[in-house]
C-alpha cells in the first residue's frame, strides 16, 4: 500500500486571521478597561484610608464607620427591590412564554422591553413627584396599624421619600431586565420535555414546575444577578427620591433612611474638594468590590448547574 496520506492543513485565509485577531483584541480590551478602572479606583482611594477621619463628612471615627451605613443601604435597597421584582418578573415571563395567546404575548413582550429603555432620571422624577406623595398615606396607615413590627416603626415620613419607595422604583427599573431574559430562557425549554410531562398527565402548572423551571433555573439566576447589578449601581433615581441619613436602619417607612453608595457619591461629589474626593472614590471602590463579588457568586451558581441546562 502507499504511505499514509499527508496531513491536510487548513488554508489560512486573510479573513480568518483578521477576524481571530479582532476577536482577541476585543476580548483583551475589556480586561484592559476593567484593569484601568480598578487601578484608578485603588490609586485614588489610598489617601482616603490615610487621612484623619475627622475630615470626612459627619466626623466619623474611621472610614469604615462612614462607609458602613452606605454599604448596608446599598445592599438593603437592592435586596428589597429584588424581593419585589423577582416574583412579578417570573410571573410575567411565564405568562408570556406559556400562557398568553401568541399575539398578546408579542405585544406584552415589546412593552416590557420598552420599560427597559426609559432613562433612570425619568424614573427618579416619577418616584419623587408621583409615587412618593401618593404612597405616603399608605405609610401612615402602616405605621399606625403595624407600628409594632420593627420594619414599620414610627415616626412616619411626611413626604413618602423612604427606602421602600426607592425599592419600588428600583423594582420597576429591573423588572424588564429579569422578565426579558427569563422569557427567552423559558422559551428555550425543549419541546420534548414539555410534551413528555403533559403526556404523563401533568397539568400545565405541573409541566412548568417539572420541565420549564428546572431547565431555566441557571438562566433565571443570571437574569436576577443582572437586575441586582443594576439595582446596586442605580444612582439618579435613588438620589432624587430618597431622604438620606447616615444611619443603619431597617425601618421602611421612616424619614431617616440609609442611602446607597452611588447616590451618596452623586449627591456629594459636585461640592467635594480636597481629600473628601478621595473618600468618595474609596466608597466607589467598595461598590466595585461588592458588585464583583455578586457577579462571581452568580457565575458560580450558574456553573454549578450547567450540565443540566442549555443556558450557559
Amino acid at each position, binding site marked *: 500500500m502507499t504511505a499514509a496520506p499527508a496531513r491536510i492543513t487548513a488554508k489560512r485565509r486573510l479573513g480568518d486571521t483578521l477576524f481571530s485577531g479582532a476577536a482577541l483584541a476585543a476580548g483583551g480590551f475589556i480586561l484592559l478597561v476593567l484593569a484601568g478602572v480598578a487601578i484608578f479606583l485603588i490609586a485614588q482611594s489610598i489617601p482616603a484610608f490615610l487621612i484623619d477621619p475627622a475630615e470626612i*463628612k*459627619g466626623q466619623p471615627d474611621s472610614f469604615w464607620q462612614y462607609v458602613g451605613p452606605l454599604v448596608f443601604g446599598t445592599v438593603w435597597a437592592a435586596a428589597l427591590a429584588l424581593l419585589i421584582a423577582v416574583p412579578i418578573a417570573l410571573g410575567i415571563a411565564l405568562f408570556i412564554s406559556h400562557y398568553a395567546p401568541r399575539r398578546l404575548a408579542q405585544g406584552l413582550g415589546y412593552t416590557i422591553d420598552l420599560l427597559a429603555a426609559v432613562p433612570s432620571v425619568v424614573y427618579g422624577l416619577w418616584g*419623587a*413627584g408621583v409615587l*412618593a*406623595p401618593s404612597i*405616603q398615606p399608605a405609610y401612615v396607615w402602616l405605621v399606625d396599624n403595624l407600628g409594632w413590627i420593627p420594619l414599620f416603626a414610627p*415616626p*412616619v*415620613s*411626611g*413626604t*413618602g*421619600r423612604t427606602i421602600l419607595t426607592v425599592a419600588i422604583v428600583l423594582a420597576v427599573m429591573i423588572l424588564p431586565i429579569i422578565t426579558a431574559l427569563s422569557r427567552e430562557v423559558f422559551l428555550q425549554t425543549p419541546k420534548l420535555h414539555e410534551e413528555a410531562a403533559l403526556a404523563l398527565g401533568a397539568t400545565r402548572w405541573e409541566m412548568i414546575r417539572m420541565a420549564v423551571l428546572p431547565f431555566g433555573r441557571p438562566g433565571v439566576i443570571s437574569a436576577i444577578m443582572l437586575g441586582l447589578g443594576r439595582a446596586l449601581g442605580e444612582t439618579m433615581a435613588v*438620589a*432624587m427620591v*430618597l*431622604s*438620606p*441619613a*447616615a*444611619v443603619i436602619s431597617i425601618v421602611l417607612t421612616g*424619614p*431617616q433612611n440609609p*442611602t446607597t453608595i452611588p447616590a451618596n457619591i452623586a*449627591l*456629594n461629589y*459636585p*461640592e*467635594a*474638594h*480636597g481629600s473628601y474626593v478621595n473618600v468618595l472614590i474609596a466608597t466607589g471602590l467598595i461598590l466595585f468590590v461588592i458588585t464583583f463579588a455578586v457577579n462571581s457568586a452568580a457565575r458560580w451558581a450558574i456553573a454549578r448547574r450547567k450540565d443540566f441546562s442549555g443556558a450557559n
Partner: protein
Amino acid sequence: MKITRIGGIAALALAGALALSSCAANETPSGDGETTSDLSGTFNGAGASSQGSAQEAWIAAFQTANPDVTINYEPSGSGAGRDTFIAGGSDWAGSDSALSDDELAGDFATCAADTKALDIPTYISPIAVIFNIEGVDELNLDAATLAKIFKGDITNWNDPAIAALNEGTTFPDLAITAVHRSDDSGTTKNFADYLNKVAPEVWDADPADTFPYQSGEGAQSTSGVVDAVTNGTGTIGYADASKAGSLGTAAIKVGDEFVNYTPEAAAAVVADSPLIEGRDANDLAFQLNRTTTDPSHYPLVLVSYSIVCQEYADAAKAEFVKAYIGYITSAEGQQVAAESAGAAPLSDDLSAKVADAIASIK
C-alpha cells in the same frame, strides 16, 4: 461588500463625532459685530453653584457686548472654586464664603508675586423658609423655634412654642416634616449660620455645607426641597427665595417684629454689616450681622463673593476681571441677576464700595 458597509458606518460615526465636538460649549461669535471693547481672549472662573444661573446670564450678556471674549464658569462648588483659584487654575473664583485667614496667608498662583486676593460681594440672595400646612397661610417664627423645628426638638405643629408666636392662627395636630438639603450646599451653611448666631443655645453645631443633625428629611438640590415641601404634608424647608414659587413663606423675627423676605431687606442687612477686621481696605468680606434687630433687615441671606487678585501677574487678565466683575456688580448686571436668578441687587452704598475695590485691581 461587508467591509465597505462597515467602512461607511465608521466614516459616518467619525463625521458625526467631529460635527458634534465642533459645536462645543463656547462658540466664538464672528468678529464683525459692533465691537465696543478691545478685550479678547478666554477667561475661566470656577466656584459656587449658587451663582451658576446668574453667571450664565452675565456671561451671555457680557459676551454679546464683547464678542472677542470667551468666558467659562464651572459651578464646581465654593471650596473647589477657591482651591482652583489659589492653585492658579482659574482667573477668578465664586464662593459662598470669603477667603479664610489661613487661605489669605498663603500664596495665590494667579496673582503677582507677594500680592493677595480680594473678596468682592457680587450676589446676594435671601433664603426663604417655605412651608406647606393645610389651612395655614401665614407663619411667624423666631430663630430659636426654627432651630428647634429643624433639629427635631419640636415635632408637632400644635406645639405651644409655635402657637405663642402666631396669635389668631389655629394649627392642626400634625407632625412636622422638616426638609433639608441632602447635598452639600452654601444655602445650608448660611441657614445654619443664621440659626447658630441667633439661637446658639439650640443650634450648637458649627455651620457647614452639610446639614449637621440626624433629623427631618433630606432632598436633593433646591428644586428637590421645594418639591418635597410642596408634595408633603406638614412640611417646612429652606430654599433660595426666588425658587419658593407659590408656597407659603414664614416671616422671621427680627427685633420685635416679624419680617418677610424682600430683596431690599436682604441687601440692607449686607450693606449695614461690618467688614471682617484686619484685612485690606478693598477686601469686602462681610461679617454678616445675623443678630440685627432692625426690622428693615432680613438676616437670613446668602452672600456669594467673587474672589479676585489685588494684582494679576498677567495684565490682560486684570483688564478682563475689572471689566467683567465691574459689569456684574453694575446696576445693569445686578438687574440681570435679579431677573434670571431672583437675586437681591446690591444697595447703592455697597455698589460704590464695590466699584472702588474693583478700580483698585491691577
